[in-house]
């Protein structure tokens, strides 16, 4: 089985789905001739032509808005936003239209599209290139939020997202793009949305994470920890989390984003509502501080480290 990195796995998923379904059309900045700034769409323009791999003007709101019209017409567009921080310019389209056109039209129109975008810190890039604002999107009903944590899951989740009847925000952890290589089957396979996975079983503490932080969690924690990769944040798999917490009686949630109002808060609140009587101690969050995402010189002072994670696990194990 070939060993692929995440860039290659995502590229393969896109190519396979475009081969299978002529409704799939890609659009975005520099995704065609250039193959994308991270080379995720490399070779697709040559293979599928400029009508299906559309190089657009620099126009985030226009890209997502155009994709909405394509989706309503019956295509399955895959708009790429070059970095999550630039999706802020398209929030109006995502929130005002993509997430609610099915509702507003009472089912007459829908918006099956996958907005792909690199997210997260640690790549020595300029301002707004390393954002981790996934929680914003999880608050808006009508849009799914999917975050793979490695090549194998990136391919399976993306193929599933491309077949979803509603809009999906697909966040690709930029730091992991070329860091991890895994065995990735050449053929098609899908991984269901809305389901978490237990990455490593453990008995004493549940550690919940997703995307870029999972790699650090796996290095930071010992065999006492049961590690869960959420994979889909919206809708998230509460049952898998709760089943684990009921078993271990302890929980730590690790997110890259600032603490306040982050998606970890939703996990902790759900544990408090549904499993508080199983808890032996407080549920802790490991998160970035509530500050603006810094430039690279301060990134190590900002991102949660392995020490932060293992300290939090040791702390809850005291109870």
């Amino acid at each position: 089985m070939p060993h692929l990195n995440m860039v290659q796995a995502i590229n393969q998923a896109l190519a396979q789905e475009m081969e299978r379904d002529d409704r799939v059309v890609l659009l975005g900045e520099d995704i065609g001739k250039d193959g994308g700034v991270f080379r995720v769409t490399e070779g697709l323009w040559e293979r599928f032509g400029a009508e299906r791999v559309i190089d657009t003007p620099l126009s985030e709101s226009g890209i997502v808005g155009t994709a909405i019209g394509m989706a309503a017409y019956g295509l399955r567009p895959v708009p790429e936003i070059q970095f999550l921080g630039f999706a802020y310019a398209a929030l109006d389209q995502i929130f005002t239209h993509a997430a609610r056109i099915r509702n507003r039209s009472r089912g007459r129109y829908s918006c099956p599209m996958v907005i792909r975008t690199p997210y997260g810190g640690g790549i020595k890039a300029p301002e707004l290139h390393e954002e981790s604002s996934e929680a914003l999107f999880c608050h808006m009903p009508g849009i799914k939020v999917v975050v793979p944590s490695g090549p194998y899951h990136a391919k399976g989740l993306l193929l599933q997202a491309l077949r979803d009847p509603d809009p999906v925000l697909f966040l690709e952890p930029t730091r992991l793009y070329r860091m991890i290589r895994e065995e990735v089957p050449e053929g098609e396979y899908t991984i269901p949305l809305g389901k978490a996975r237990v990455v490593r079983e453990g008995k004493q503490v549940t550690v919940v994470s997703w995307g870029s932080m999972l790699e650090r969690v796996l290095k930071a924690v010992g065999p006492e920890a049961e590690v869960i990769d959420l994979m889909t944040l919206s809708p998230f798999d509460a049952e898998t989390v709760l089943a684990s917490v009921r078993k271990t009686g302890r929980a730590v949630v690790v997110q890259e984003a600032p603490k306040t109002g982050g998606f970890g808060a939703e996990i902790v609140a759900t544990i408090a509502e549904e499993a508080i009587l199983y808890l032996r101690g407080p549920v802790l969050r490991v998160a970035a501080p509530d500050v603006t995402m810094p430039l690279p010189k301060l990134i190590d002072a900002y991102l949660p480290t392995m020490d932060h994670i293992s300290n939090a696990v040791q702390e809850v194990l005291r109870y």
Partner: protein
Amino acid sequence: MPQEILATFNVRRLSILDPDGNVDEALMPELPDAELRRMYEMMVLLRTYDNRALALQREGRLGTYPPSFGQEAAQIGSAFALKPTDWVFPSFREVGIHLTLGYPIAQLYQYWAGDERGQRGPDHLNIFPFCVSVGTHLPHAVGAALAARYRKDPVAVAVFFGDGATSKGDFHEAFNMAGALNAPVVFVCQNNQWAISIPVREQTAAATLAQKAFGYGFEGIQVDGNDVLAVYRGVKEALDRARDGGGPTFVECLTYRMADHTTADDAARYRPPEEVASWRERDPLLRLERFLARRGLWDEAYRNQVQEQVQQTVDAGVRAMEEIPPPERSDLFTYTAAAPTPRQAAQLEES
């Protein structure tokens, strides 16, 4: 180095029917008498529908409503230019399009009465729901147009918006995308000259809205928006060009919002009455009546007959709207996504 002129543009204005009902025969579109009369009937229907909406709102039977009064020619002329297979992306002040295309009146009232089910158009119409967020639907039209071209469908896309929308970022992004990708889309602006209280001269320093299109590499034309024949011709030519691969066009229909912005607005606070009075002289409906009378297609008896017929149609629409049972609570959940999340399913059960 000598200075050179790199580009010059000419902004055309199209006007066919003058306020006295005289027509420029050279520009007169080919429309059979029956179609001319149907245009008139639709304009009367729109005005009657509109007046009834205001009455219903005052009686508390409708919510906030944005009237079309004064803009009948801009709407009906555009709608007549559309083919049944074309796609339409409306804002919220173009119900004349809906009425002409045969959208059920009961559903239009239903929507403005606060029931989202009114937005589900009949399956045979390619008309998007009203867009309340000003100007944000322009990129959707570009996308649908590109999809139609990809599918090789002989379809053009028309998107309707007001002058206020031309100040929005999505106006720029959609125009730019349409020009760069040569999308078969027609941008139709009902320039009613007021974005609530801000007159168009304070919205832009440009002399016309039409000229903005040239900056994006395609033509913008201003038509007399109170002249149903000019609107029809301008929009039809643009749609034909789009269907023939000629790319986008911007049609600015210069008209006037005779009424308040909505039933929640009082335009007397910011608008001189002389200005409103001067536009009353240019009433699009009167103008068409005069023209039809000259052609022997209109008299008092015909007018009375049309008004009576239209009144019955509107009455029936109101009755049908009020007979619709209220939506179920489950309706809240049904359309958020194709399938409910586990949490939504639980919330539905909680009621």
